[in-house]
């Protein structure tokens, strides 16, 4: 499928987010939880946006999500699906849906994290239908 996907621009990485991107290169999707208020937030920050505590900790996310909303970008050379997906940990994140029939995607579809190499070589979390692995096996 990746042969007819668009090129992914490299993410801007900074001091606060470097661990997230290092983990992505290992195939791990990290989130941050605040030790003070207990809330998970996204995108990951050094400072909790819910209580401004500095005590935010990385943890490994399940990678399981459902589609909150999406749009197929049509007026480009290679159409692609942008989406907000709601992770089971309670945060909704911007991403792309890959390995899917772009005309069959629907809100609430179950998806799971997978990774794509961006133009710099940095891996990037994206999401694919949860049944994707089974569908290519059968």
């Amino acid at each position, binding site marked *: 499928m990746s042969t007819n996907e668009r090129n992914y621009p490299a993410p801007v990485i900074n001091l606060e987010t470097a661990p997230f991107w290092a983990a992505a290169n290992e195939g791990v999707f990290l989130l941050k939880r605040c030790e003070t208020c207990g*809330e998970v937030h996204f995108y990951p920050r050094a400072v909790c946006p819910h209580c401004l505590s500095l005590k935010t900790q990385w943890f490994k996310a399940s990678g399981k999500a459902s589609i909150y909303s*999406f749009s197929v970008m*049509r007026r480009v050379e290679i159409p692609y699906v*942008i989406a907000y997906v709601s992770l089971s940990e309670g945060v909704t994140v911007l991403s792309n849906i890959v390995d899917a029939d772009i005309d069959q995607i629907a809100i609430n579809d179950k998806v799971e994290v997978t990774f794509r190499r961006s133009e710099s070589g940095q891996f990037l979390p994206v999401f694919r239908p949860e049944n994707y692995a089974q569908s290519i096996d059968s």
Partner: protein
Amino acid sequence: MKRLSKAFIAGAFEHPTRKAVDKTVPQLHAEVAAGALKDAGLTKDDVDGYFCASDAPGLGGHSMAEYMGLNLRYIDTTETGGSSYLVHVSHAVDAISSGRCSVALITLAGRPRAEGVVSLAARDYGGGAPELGFELPYGPTITNQYAMAAMRHMYEYGTTSEQLAWIKVAASHHAQHNENALLREVVTVSDVLNSPMIADPLHRLDCCVISDGGGALVVVGPQHAKAIGDRCVKILGRGESIKHLNGGRVDLTYTGAAVSGPIAFSEARLSPSDIDYVSIYDSFTITVLETLEDLGFCVKGQGGQFVSDGNLISGVGRLPFNTDGGGLCNNHPNNRGGMTKVIEAVRQLRGEAHPRVQVPDCLLALAHGTGGSIGTRMGSATLILGGNNA
């Protein structure tokens, strides 16, 4: 009983150009400033407060103040995207009523068409923005962000593409009478649905135009207004807000108007049923639909029904909107539609809109601006304005 107002819009001017190949951006700022000052019967030497956003070239307002030869004792360069100019009106009221300035000039100008700006490009407001790494790689564009709001609104409330199309249809009915409008052709619901899909579910005709030009406003206090006369428009209520992704607690079905609207109505001591005319920021059809709901013109989720069957067409429906043709048909200078929203509301309240779209006895109007993106971070601003007899 006549309503009191702490400040008034005394001058308004919309640049007639829609493609400014032969003009610089500073020149456009100065031309709209001259137009609005002339409209108010004032000169640039009367101006002591200047308000502009990031479309003004140079550091803050410094360069434009110098270019136009303004001598200032008050400056405000608040940047909230396309809604900036409504925020400027609100801040000008506070500056004037606290004695910080007496004549406030607000300008907007730009030439994205002449410069060939590619609207599909992902938006990047600057390398230091903390969200960039988590957004730009995924190809967010202005259109697909608003499209995701539309998609979710459809899912939650059953809103349809036909209903969204009615918003464009209404705008086109108005634009046919505006000789400066970029798109003057009247379109039907099926024209909208048959136009190319840009980003599901938004078609080309769900999107606003890209145009050059700009506009300016002059805000004054009661003393100046008395001298200028009955073309002055009262500023009765003001509200602003910023809505964002809230640490990942995302809800795309409402806008910042849900906060800015009630603040403005409360200050004006008015309710949506009092309003004769609305200017609603219309970057996309979905922007109008969500905003009308959030401002309380209909129950949340029923915007689709509300905008259908010509309800927004002047002389036909219950709530005439964007009688200049709006951003969908007339003008969206520098991709920032807030300024023109205020200008058409001023025309309506003065009885100076095109006769075919003028709302009879238009006494109370609302103008609303949205800046940034309803798919991520937005600035919202609401103004409630009154005519001389309000």
